[in-house]
């Protein structure tokens, strides 16, 4: 009497069955899926073409459920309560769920049969195959799905064109102003946008647009909307909407009380929902009804936040209002607009392009009094931390409110993974995870700051302990404040603290044993166990004589030579016993360690500056050299990079650095907290138009304050963001001396500058330290026989033994 049959196996079907199981449903469940694959996450589909395999997308198995794949339901006999499949299989049901999803809308243009659609993994495989012998692709549809498809084509190496009927991209999510900023971002990525036109026809190797223009392209993908798959319902006489969709009531029940419909095939309250959040809610409502509950689906929040082609786009609440406040920065590519009620008291909605910060912080306030002045909310963006009301929705994918999360926290959940497990918040798109963290912090949950199993303290706390207690060795510190014998996390961190505070040689005494292999051999380990050597070239300025020495050393030791991004020269392939010989030659020629191996100042890049450049307004090279010499050897929680540009054209890319300086007519502007890397961030302006002397004082304090208070391996970008009060607080501390610590910071930097010595020079002068630079302790003259090179483009390249051979040789 309790046989549930589900037609369709996408995310909505999966969620429905998962809900039934988790609530103790004791009948049988049979799922029919038309695809050959079990249910998978369609939201992350684009990633499948680049860096994900199917296992990552696949939704969890449903225990005890009969799943029939490659089995499409083709008929429903409502009188007999039996469904039949294309293969002729008949399955009786007591309750039937239609979760047949939708099909991409293919406009009726000539040649449409040559085009692809973008919905399933099979579609993606067809596109991938076609792209392998194509150079150009066209995506029809500039909405959310269209841009995802465009991203996929771009990822496959095609020159990509987007054709959108509306006058601007993503018309459902952004207004005209936002569309213009979005188009700017997308054009800069090399994609061509054709808005306000439609497709006239598709020919074998080109498409014709409605305005007569043509695009030579052999891959055409339709991604211009969806239409519900309601044919099963139509054929068996269930009520369907005029424009498609299986009509259901607020309990997701069709006109036949034994049949439910959920997801993109369902028409509820006159709407078909294509977003995953509402579809999940529908599945949960239907499951609840099937178990005798009374949940209702009363429409859904259609707010969207996504990152497409690297651009954040978000829309929440209404897209119009009596009053609005707009922030637009066409240069930075940021557009933010808030809609408020006519008395300017109530937030109605917002649109963001380029920075979705307001979405995360403000969406929960839609329909509620504004938490601050609209202009403040737009300008300070995500830095404002607001108290959310209990009924504010935090996770719209899984409909979790701040109240739900607070209850879980009260019940003893202490971290984000715990909250995810018990509320599902943050498990679908993940955009609410920052808010979840904020709620945890505001509830007074202490997130563990323990460095590792050997210390309960954070790096900043250990720094203070070492400074105040005047501790000089790791053994003393772990004996007094830790346990065990340390590890690869705490030992280098403490080594860095000791070096920041006391300078001294990194290989002196017990400290040698704390260093990572890079610091231990004062060089950078590479994949075959050899090392690379980077001499310091301050500001990137070098005489021909010194350049010749670098070339001679590289030639004589057979090293692979490459120019780095930091205006230096990297020499690869040195064995440990060669390092002292190489450095003897370099030191004799006047070179010093470049500290490329250390968590320390790396380089201060510069443009050529006012000395040569007809645009330059200050001597950027001179300042870069002065800064690099001042801060060389300064050990810090992570590497430090800097650059100086001689004018606002910013050729040195200073705003991508931990501290970057840009010349002005009146002096210098200082930017802090930038980096490239995994998560690029532009540095923020800290002070402007200052003299060289003032500039250096503020940089001294910035660096020392960072070294004192940052976490292990926390770059300045993350550190600045983590400071409560942000940039204003930082400015108060290091410019206005609000904590009264500037004297101490200044003194600490003076001590560093006064005690700096080149660690390679002292190493090659010390026989004891030199004796460690051998491949084999019992055969000091023997090079490591496992290091082998071949030649590529006239230079050496490591040859590695394949790991399969390694494991088989280990097994014997």
């Amino acid at each position: 009497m309790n046989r549930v049959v589900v037609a369709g196996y996408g995310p909505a079907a999966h969620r429905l069955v998962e809900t039934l199981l988790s609530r103790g449903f004791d009948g049988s469940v049979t799922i029919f899926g038309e695809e050959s694959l079990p249910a998978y996450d369609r939201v992350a589909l684009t990633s499948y073409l680049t860096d994900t395999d199917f296992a990552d997308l696949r939704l969890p198995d449903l225990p005890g459920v009969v799943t029939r794949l490659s089995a499409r339901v083709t008929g429903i006999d409502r009188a007999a309560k039996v469904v039949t499949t294309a293969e002729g299989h008949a399955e009786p049901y007591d309750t039937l769920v239609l979760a047949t999803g939708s099909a991409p809308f293919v406009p009726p243009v000539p040649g449409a049969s040559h085009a692809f659609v973008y919905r399933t993994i099979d579609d993606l495989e067809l596109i991938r195959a076609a792209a392998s012998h194509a150079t150009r692709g066209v995506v029809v549809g500039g909405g959310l799905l269209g841009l995802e498809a465009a991203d996929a084509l771009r990822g496959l190496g095609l020159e990509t064109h987007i054709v959108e009927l509306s006058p601007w991209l993503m018309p459902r999510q952004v207004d005209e102003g936002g569309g213009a900023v979005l188009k700017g971002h997308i054009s800069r990525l090399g994609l061509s946008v054709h808005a306000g036109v439609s497709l006239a026809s598709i020919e074998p190797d080109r498409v014709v647009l409605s305005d007569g223009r043509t695009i030579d392209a052999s891959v055409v993908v339709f991604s211009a909307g969806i239409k519900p798959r309601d044919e099963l319902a139509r054929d068996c006489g269930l009520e369907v909407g005029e424009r498609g969709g299986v009509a259901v009531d607020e309990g997701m029940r069709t006109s036949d009380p034994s049949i439910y419909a959920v997801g993109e095939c369902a028409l509820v309250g006159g709407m078909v929902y294509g977003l995953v959040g509402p579809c999940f809610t529908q599945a949960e409502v239907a499951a609840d009804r099937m178990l005798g509950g009374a949940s209702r689906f009363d429409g859904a929040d259609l707010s969207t936040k996504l990152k497409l082609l690297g651009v954040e786009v978000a829309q929440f609440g209404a897209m119009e209002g009596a009053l609005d406040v707009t922030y637009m920065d066409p240069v930075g590519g940021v557009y933010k607009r808030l809609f408020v009620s006519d008395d300017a008291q109530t937030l109605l909605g917002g649109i963001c392009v380029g920075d979705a910060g307001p979405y995360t912080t403000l969406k929960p306030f839609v329909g509620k009094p504004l938490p601050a002045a609209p202009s403040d909310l737009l300008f300070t963006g995500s830095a404002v931390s607001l108290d959310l009301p209990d009924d504010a929705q935090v996770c719209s994918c899984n409909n979790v409110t701040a109240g739900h999360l607070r209850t879980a926290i009260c019940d003893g959940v202490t971290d984000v993974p715990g909250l995810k497990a018990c509320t599902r918040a943050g498990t679908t798109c993940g955009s609410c995870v920052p808010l979840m963290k904020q709620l945890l912090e505001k509830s007074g949950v202490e997130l563990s700051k323990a460095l590792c199993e050997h210390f309960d303290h954070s790096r900043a706390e250990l720094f203070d302990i070492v400074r105040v207690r005047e501790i000089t060795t790791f053994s003393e510190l772990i004996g007094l404040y830790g346990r065990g014998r340390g590890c690869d996390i705490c030992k280098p961190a403490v080594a860095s603290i000791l070096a920041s505070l006391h300078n001294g040689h990194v290989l002196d005494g017990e400290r040698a044993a704390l260093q990572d292999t890079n610091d231990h051999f004062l060089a950078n380990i590479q994949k075959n166990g050899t090392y690379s050597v980077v001499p310091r070239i301050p500001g990137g300025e070098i005489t021909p004589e010194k350049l010749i020495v670098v070339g001679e050393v590289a030639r004589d030791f057979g090293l692979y030579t490459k120019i780095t991004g930091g205006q230096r020269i990297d020499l690869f392939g040195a064995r440990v016993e060669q390092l002292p010989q190489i450095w003897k030659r370099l030191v004799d020629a006047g070179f010093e360690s470049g500290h490329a191996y250390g968590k320390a100042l790396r380089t201060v890049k510069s443009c050529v500056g006012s000395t040569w450049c007809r645009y330059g307004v200050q001597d950027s090279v001179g300042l870069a050299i002065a800064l690099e010499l001042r801060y060389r050897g300064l050990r810090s929680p992570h590497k430090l990079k800097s650059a100086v540009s001689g004018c606002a054209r910013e050729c040195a890319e200073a705003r991508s650095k931990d501290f970057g300086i840009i010349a002005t007519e009146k002096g210098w502007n200082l930017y802090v907290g930038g980096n490239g890397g995994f998560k690029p961030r532009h540095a923020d302006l800290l002070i402007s138009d200052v003299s060289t002397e003032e500039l250096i004082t503020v940089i001294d304090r910035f660096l020392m304050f960072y070294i004192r208070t940052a976490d292990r391996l926390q770059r300045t970008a993350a550190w600045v963001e983590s400071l409560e009060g942000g940039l204003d607080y930082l400015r108060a501390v290091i410019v206005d001396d609000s904590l009264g610590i500037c004297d101490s910071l200044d003194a600490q930097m003076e001590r560093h500058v006064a005690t700096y010595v080149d660690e390679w020079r002292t190493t090659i002068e010390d026989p004891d330290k030199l004796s460690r630079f051998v491949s084999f302790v019992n055969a000091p003259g023997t090079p490591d026989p496992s290091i082998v090179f071949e030649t590529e483009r006239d230079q050496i390249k490591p040859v590695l033994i394949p790991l399969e051979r390694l494991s088989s040789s280990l097994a014997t």
Partner: protein
Amino acid sequence: MTVAELPTRVWVPVCAYAVLLPERGVCALVDGRQVALFRTHNGHVHAIGNLDPFTGAHVLSRGIVGSRGEEPTVASPMHKQVFSLVTGQCLDDPSVAVPTYPTRVNDGRVEVGL
């Protein structure tokens, strides 16, 4: 049992004990094999294979020595997987282990047993 068929253990001297820094490793070439030797803080000497099974580079002797719980360990300098100095077992991946070798200190010299 096949104990009787095993050849008698050979002890190969490799270096003076005093050469080993506390909590640091060196590599020795013993009968063509690369052996990583470590002196822990309590003076014990451990020997494991120098080959990092995760990357194929001979580098374990250059890792950071420490402890996990009571177990003395070394972390690969490549990708930081931690190995027991006593058993050679990788503590981050139970399916991986490196060979271990017996050691002894004889008249101030470190010897590795083969």
